[in-house]
């Protein structure tokens, strides 16, 4: 909306006092440099020009191919246009894209979906071929392509333009994990598998390129950025897990392949298994340190999962319930969180539970931070330590992979 009238404050308003906000109002517009109120009053009662009154309609045609003098120039072109994640890419030649397309039965010109960097931005459309181009760039192979297509079809971007610097985290379940050569075991969350690394990277690259960019200050506003955004696609170790797989908890059969998507990735905190002394206190502390706006995704080694079973937690739901009961903080602190206030307070005021009960709690009164249903658990890793982690991750959706084979 290039003609829309906007006025810009010099900084974030969260945590600013009334006096400071008055200073913002009496100060200058951060973009134009003019007095902020002049900008605002002009927006309301200023003159419009012909372009404002006419409106505008136009198309932005895209070429299928781009040309460069040689490979070095092509790499430079991709870097300059911000079509990469800063790391070297595999150039998407016609031959490589054709090979990638052999990884699916879908037609190259089929529309896969639409993505946007933020809810209020325009949504760009893309085809199977366009997803293949980005998968090639990431270094993926045809055997990974159905998972990449499923990620692309999800409607969830891995390049969300949130001030909070969100990343997307994917958990892959079902037979496709092993067929694609994903590493579910030792070092599954680290750089030890081409499949794990390139599937997550492809998701990031396709998100930024197919949604219309992810450029800091333009189409990306995350102030810190997020290193999960480089690659974060992890397969659950279903074979060594004592519990039902994550995708089954979200409505799929065990023999179906699916990928679950989470947004967040701001914190990663060590958890504890019941084999560790003071494990309950450790987990309460970890939960207390999580961001109250986004429930954690708990990843744990099969050893830790079996420790929970032995300690009387026969299913994931039993662990989720314990975590929900034990993740607590004072009502005052809970409701001071900006995202909680923005998203959950209106629901509380409308009487929706459990938010309304939490909102009625007085300042020092402890409230449960999370609903059990918002906490997810995935068993990942090599079975060599009772390790676990809590990752900020709001569950978004689980999408099927099999239709993209």
């Amino acid at each position: 909306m290039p003609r829309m009238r906007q006025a810009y404050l010099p900084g974030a308003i969260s945590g600013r006092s009334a006096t400071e906000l008055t200073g913002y109002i009496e100060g200058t517009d951060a973009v134009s440099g003019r007095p902020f109120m002049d900008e605002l009053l002009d927006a309301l009662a200023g003159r419009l020009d012909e372009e404002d009154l006419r409106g505008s309609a136009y198309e932005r045609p895209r070429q299928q191919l781009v040309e460069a003098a040689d490979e070095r120039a092509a790499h430079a072109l991709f870097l300059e246009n911000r079509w990469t994640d800063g790391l070297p890419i595999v150039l998407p030649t016609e031959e490589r894209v054709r090979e990638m397309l052999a990884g699916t039965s879908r037609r190259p010109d089929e529309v896969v979906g639409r993505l946007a960097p933020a809810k209020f931005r325009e949504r760009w459309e893309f085809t199977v071929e366009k997803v293949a181009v980005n998968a090639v760039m990431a270094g993926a192979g045809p055997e990974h392509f159905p998972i990449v297509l499923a990620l692309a079809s999800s409607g969830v971007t891995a390049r969300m333009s949130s001030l909070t610097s969100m990343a997307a985290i994917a958990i892959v379940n079902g037979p496709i994990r092993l067929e694609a050569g994903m590493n579910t075991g030792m070092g599954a969350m680290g750089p030890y598998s081409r499949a794990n690394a390139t599937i997550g990277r492809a998701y990031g690259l396709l998100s930024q390129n197919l949604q219309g960019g992810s450029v800091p200050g333009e189409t990306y506003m995350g102030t810190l950025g997020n290193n999960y955004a480089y690659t974060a696609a992890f397969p659950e170790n279903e074979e060594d897990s004592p519990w039902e797989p994550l995708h089954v908890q979200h409505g799929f059969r065990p023999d179906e392949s699916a990928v679950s998507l989470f947004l967040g990735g701001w914190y990663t905190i060590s958890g504890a298994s019941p084999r560790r002394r003071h494990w309950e206190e450790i987990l309460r502390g970890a939960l207390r340190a999580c961001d109250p706006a986004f429930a954690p995704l708990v990843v744990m080694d099969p050893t830790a999962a079996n420790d929970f079973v032995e300690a009387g937690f026969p299913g994931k739901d039993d662990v989720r319930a314990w975590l929900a009961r034990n993740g607590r903080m004072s009502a005052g602190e809970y409701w001071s969180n900006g995202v909680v206030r923005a998203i959950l307070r209106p629901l509380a005021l409308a009487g929706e539970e459990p938010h309304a009960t939490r909102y009625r709690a007085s300042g020092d009164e402890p409230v449960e931070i999370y609903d059990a249903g918002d906490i997810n658990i995935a068993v990942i890793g090599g079975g060599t330590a009772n390790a676990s982690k809590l990752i900020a991750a709001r569950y978004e959706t689980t999408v099927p992979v099999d239709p993209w084979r």
Partner: protein
Amino acid sequence: MTISVYDPRGYPPKVEGRSLAPRLESLDGKVVYLVIAPFDNTDVFMERLAAWFKENRPQVETRIVATEAFGQDSPAMRAEIEASGDAAVVGLGL
């Protein structure tokens, strides 16, 4: 030797631009709604903005309202503004 590679970008939608709403000649005697899109501290900001109008442009009446939830449309609130307001300031955006 020149090489050709695929353009990795998606397809942007056709832009269907609308004209801007007609602007007021003056805000004097008008009702300006200050709409809280409930991000953290926006309520305090809008109160300060209303105070600025009261002190500097007392001929302008301001009314503070809030959307029902962050990022969601509030049809009832929009209807109220269309029926009773002359202009609106929506804040704060991201």
